[in-house]
């Protein structure tokens, strides 16, 4: 009994130490962002005075509000596009019966193996040829075309759990497929929609390579690009840089705590965060 107890307190201490490993970096970054310039280069963990100068400076260093607006625009459009189109395609695979359905579904899954490096260059050339470089279109329009194999898979898995008898009853009542999708299945699918929306939000908000390739015009930049720029300076101003990081992390953290369940569902199912 004694040994049991000692063992469990040892494990508790171990869990606390690991928690420090995961949490201290956040605290350190937050404190750096609140430190006066001079104190950044001291090893004191706590600042002598808390001040928000670095956050104000940020607005002079980069066009923060413009970048924010661009990021929000691209993210919102992408989330709408992906949830709409992946649920539509997912409905075809999960709720309808048609010839070739299963083979096409396996094919969709197989395309997940296709590395994006192989398609990246021709896709860039396509957008260049149709004059979409330096616009948000390359980052948003494709989102309406299926929303990615993984999201279709996720939607389809959820739709499979909708009772077929419910759908058939609606069909006998003369509902069109579109009406069934919109009025019956989508309202039932809120958890799946939330999961897909959160994964898409995370991906788009953090996306770096896409904007880097397609948005060379400074005024079109996103927060992710702006942060990368700020970090790439010869002598980075750490306090300002950390203030920028804190602001960019904020929506992610807020959404995490609001929708923890869907967040975790999305992660355990995908692990796709890179």
């Amino acid at each position: 009994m004694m040994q049991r107890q000692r063992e469990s307190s040892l494990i508790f201490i171990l869990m606390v130490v690991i928690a420090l490993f995961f949490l201290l970096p956040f605290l350190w970054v937050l404190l750096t962002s609140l430190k006066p310039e001079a104190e950044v280069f001291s090893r004191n963990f706590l600042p002598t005075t808390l001040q928000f100068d670095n956050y104000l400076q940020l607005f002079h260093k980069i066009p923060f509000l413009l970048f924010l607006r661009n990021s929000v625009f691209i993210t919102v459009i992408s989330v709408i596009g992906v949830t709409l189109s992946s649920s539509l395609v997912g409905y075809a695979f999960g709720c309808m019966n048609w010839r070739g359905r299963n083979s096409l579904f396996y094919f969709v899954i197989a395309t997940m193996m296709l590395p994006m490096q192989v398609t990246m260059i021709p896709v860039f050339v396509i957008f260049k040829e149709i004059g979409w470089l330096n616009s948000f279109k390359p980052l948003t329009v494709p989102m309406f075309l299926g929303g990615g194999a993984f999201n279709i898979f996720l939607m389809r898995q959820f739709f499979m759990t909708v009772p077929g008898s419910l759908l058939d009853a609606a069909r006998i009542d003369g509902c069109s497929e579109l009406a069934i999708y919109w009025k019956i299945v989508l309202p039932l699918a809120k958890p799946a929609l939330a999961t897909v929306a959160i994964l898409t939000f995370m991906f788009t908000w953090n996306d770096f390579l896409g904007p880097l390739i397609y948005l060379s015009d400074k005024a079109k930049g996103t927060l992710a690009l702006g942060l990368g720029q700020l970090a790439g300076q010869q002598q980075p101003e750490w306090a300002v840089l950390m203030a920028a990081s804190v602001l960019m992390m904020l929506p992610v953290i807020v959404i995490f705590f609001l929708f923890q369940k869907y967040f975790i569902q999305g992660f355990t199912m995908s692990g796709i965060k890179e």
Partner: protein
Amino acid sequence: MKTSRKNTLWGYLFASPWIVGFLIFGLYPIFASFYYSLCQYDVLRIPQFVGLRNYRELLFQDHYFYSAVWNTLFYTFIRSPLVIIGSLALALIVSRAARGVKFFRTIYFIPSIISGVILSVLWLWLLNPQYGLINSALQFFGLQGPLWLIDPSWSKPAIILMNIWSLGGGRMLVFLAAIQNVPTHYYEAVEMDGGGWWAKFTNVTLPFISPVLFLWFILEVIFSLQVFVEAYVMTKGGPLNSTLFYNLYLYNKAFDDFDMGYASALAWLLFILAGVITFVQFRLSKRWVYYSGGAEK
């Protein structure tokens, strides 16, 4: 329900966004990319066919190519097992019924919501040799920390350390779900034989979760081979090309030099490399992955 012609029409109609997207952004680019890889192509002029020249140059003349391959393989083969073993250990710790264990699960998961540029910028500061948190913490214990991203022999380990921090909690939840699916009566059987937790782990947990571990070894390798943003933001490939990872080199060739033919050849070689590694993993899996057949969901 029968599959009438009308149903089939509706089915394809609903699936059509994906089909259109795949034709434009998947199928056509595969062929175009392969063709470009056989061409000299700078985007401004039309591609000029040069046969296997790009591949020959890559394999026989380009020492940056071999640095990029070496860096990427080093990164992949060190990072993947560390992330998997680390997050499996975490999962084992938080799978025990203990006080506050749910709270700790949430804490461990939080870094997993940070990725890409934010992650890189945070760690650029954390890894600062003089004033960063990591070396300050090491000094607290009387240790002299390395120069991390400035030292060619520590730059890759630094990026791996960062990824363990940011991936551990997410993978932990995956393995935790797998561990919780193991039927408990198997543990009781080991207990009756007088086995401790190590015996339970090696004889029950490990075999039962081996299919999940295998899947994540495959995914982890594929993700690791893709490393790009970290190197682009934190090191630009330096110092001394020690973090010139494959995709960074590919990006430089494509979008700095606009040598699209060469970059396309690079992309195909990476595809082949990833395919070979995955194939080898499948062959090796027969020796260690256990499918309980039916007992698993």
